[in-house]
């Protein structure tokens, strides 16, 4: 039964409201997606004052009110969305004078992040990549870790290493340092992705050092101390323990959001260290005039990006820059692209019809890693 038919039936048979609603929810999967329209629906049989859709699609109102089906506690909201869009969302319930956020109780599709999980609405054109899970015969890499005593931060940091299946200590592998390493592993499947792409020979076997911040936003927000940590502490420690390259051209750094800021900032400060940057949804906020209008955490970031924009110095290296079109950061990333190219960087850029989330970053990993560390896909025949 379609939503319009339901509304008609409810109007015709108000006495059968609960029965009709139950039949409707049992017969459908939610959200209802038809063409490029997604219809969100809520009804749990309890008295409800209102429902809002909470989402993170920049350009749409963050809080979108549902329409009540007259005479019921059922609500719906139809949104036209781009064909390949993937939208994470929650419902805000207004009950008993309180507002409460919940996942869509009738949608099993969820995406996880450090703050919990959201419901997911994939539009018909969105396809989950086929390379996020390694093939059955994939030769898996291994994970190990060591503790790094950091003089710069005055504490100890856990460094988790990804070593490709073929890893041999006497060889020198390309190296990639990864900000927010735990979240990249947990929420963006990065270890599986590395295994799969290396197995498919789309990406060269490489070593990845995953690290995490403690006071993450302050450490990653264009903080010179993080550059010192990355370049003078982490890099030598990894090179001393593992078979990795000392060639800057084969040494990379990556991150998402503030992690991307930290990566670019480190390269800007120490341009002779990293030859590859993977920058996902970087918080590259800048101002032409006035205040940036965001939290004070952005102060050093804006100062850095403004300085970068005024700097005419050359920047070298290969970069993959990406951002979701549903992010408020999209315009800043688009603005950064010509800037980096003008400075001499070899940049590939991609956009997704997605937001500021870990699945979006997972889905762009193939673009980034194959650009930065291309494998012998065309040349290799077992």
């Amino acid at each position, binding site marked *: 039964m379609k939503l319009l038919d339901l509304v008609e039936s409810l109007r015709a048979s108000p006495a059968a409201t609960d029965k009709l609603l139950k039949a409707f929810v049992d017969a459908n999967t939610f959200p209802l997606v038809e063409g490029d329209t997604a219809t969100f629906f809520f009804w749990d049989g309890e008295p409800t004052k209102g429902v809002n859709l909470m989402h993170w699609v920049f350009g749409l109102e963050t809080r979108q009110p549902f329409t009540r089906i007259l005479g019921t506690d059922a609500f719906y909201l139809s949104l036209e969305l781009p064909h390949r869009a993937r939208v994470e969302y929650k419902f805000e319930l207004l009950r008993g004078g309180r507002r409460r956020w919940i996942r869509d109780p009738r949608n099993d599709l969820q995406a996880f992040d450090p703050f919990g999980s959201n419901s997911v609405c994939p539009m018909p054109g969105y396809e989950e990549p086929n390379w996020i899970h390694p093939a059955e015969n994939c030769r898996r890499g291994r994970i190990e870790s060591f503790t790094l005593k950091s003089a710069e931060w005055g504490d100890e940091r856990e460094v988790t290493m990804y070593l490709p299946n073929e890893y041999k200590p006497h060889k020198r592998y390309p190296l990639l340092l990864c900000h927010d390493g735990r979240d990249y592993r947990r929420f963006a499947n990065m270890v599986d992705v590395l295994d799969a792409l290396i197995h498919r020979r789309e990406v060269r076997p490489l070593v990845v050092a995953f690290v995490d911040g403690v006071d993450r936003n302050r450490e990653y927000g264009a903080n010179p101390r993080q550059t010192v940590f990355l370049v003078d502490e982490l890099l030598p420690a990894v090179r001393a323990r593992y078979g990795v390259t000392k060639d800057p051209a084969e040494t990379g750094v990556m991150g998402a959001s503030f992690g991307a800021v930290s990566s670019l900032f480190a390269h800007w400060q120490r341009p002779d260290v990293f030859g590859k940057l993977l920058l996902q949804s970087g918080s590259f906020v800048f101002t032409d005039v006035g205040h940036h209008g965001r939290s004070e955490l952005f102060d050093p970031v804006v100062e850095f990006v403004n300085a970068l924009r005024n700097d005419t110095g050359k920047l070298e290296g290969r970069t993959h820059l990406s951002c979701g079109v549903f992010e408020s950061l999209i315009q800043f990333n688009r603005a950064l692209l010509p800037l980096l190219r003008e400075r001499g960087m070899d940049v590939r850029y991609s956009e997704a019809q997605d937001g500021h989330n870990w699945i979006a970053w997972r889905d762009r990993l193939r673009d980034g890693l*194959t650009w930065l560390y291309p494998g012998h896909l065309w040349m290799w*025949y077992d």
Partner: protein
Amino acid sequence: MSGDLFLLGPQRPNPNLGEALERIPGTGPIVTITAGWRLDEGEIDALHAVVGPDAVHLPLYQWFEECMETMPETRRRYKQRQRELRRVKELYRIRLHRALEAVRALHERADQDNELVEKQLEWALADVRRIDRQFVDHSKSLFAAYTDVSRPWELPEVAARRKESAEKLSSARAILIAGGHVAVLRNRMLFFGVHQQLFQAWLQKTAVVAWGAGAMVLTDPIVLFYDDPPDGPSHPEILDSGLALVQDTVVLPDAEKRLRLRDRMRVRLLAGRFRPHQCVAMENGAFLEMKDGGWVQRGERGTASVLEPTGEVVPLEPIA
């Protein structure tokens, strides 16, 4: 009269090299060439365990690295030539992609004015073939133009290795060429003149067994293929001329994974483009033997297939 010639499918996950070896009579050394494995060239334990005590390794990749270290001028000239060859490849791609785009556009109109389009399609495909041919010719002439490195095996510093490979190959009962990086494998064999020695040995009844990139280097030209690279759909292209021990065949290892075999238009284009060569898809388990100028399938049905210019993929029936 020449030796046996066996082409195998990829050796993962289930190797069938042992079956091929069982068909090679007599005793004597079996030479293994694994230069396509690049830095892992020396990791031959598993391979030699299958071959047995007669296994003798020919470490061409290692030899090449040693030569490059001790022959700076040769290295400089060699790299210079490789750079030029890469440039030629880039230019070839520009023409090739445009020509293939025309073929694709005509294919899309094939239902409308069939007869008219077919004629144009034939010419468009001829354009693609001409571009392929010109690329190979251009590469060959460039290769030859670097006279000082076009026959490196004649250089005194290379002579000792050349002699060693000649001794090993001329006394071999069989020569095995493993897969891996097809360009590296081809170039290392050419550097030491192993292609000539291989041909001589084969003419004197030494068996040749090759798989993956090893099978590809025996053909001419060598065709690279992968329909769905990360950058989006692509088309096969020619790497360069091959050793031409195998005539009239384009070998396509792992074609199920690498090609859209269910896309009739792409299959038709690939098969038609390289005609009169026969495009042979080889999966794990494929076991082809050259007999009277044609292929006999000794593996299971479905492991080797021929791509037909009609767009069909026809399995090679196993020999009874």
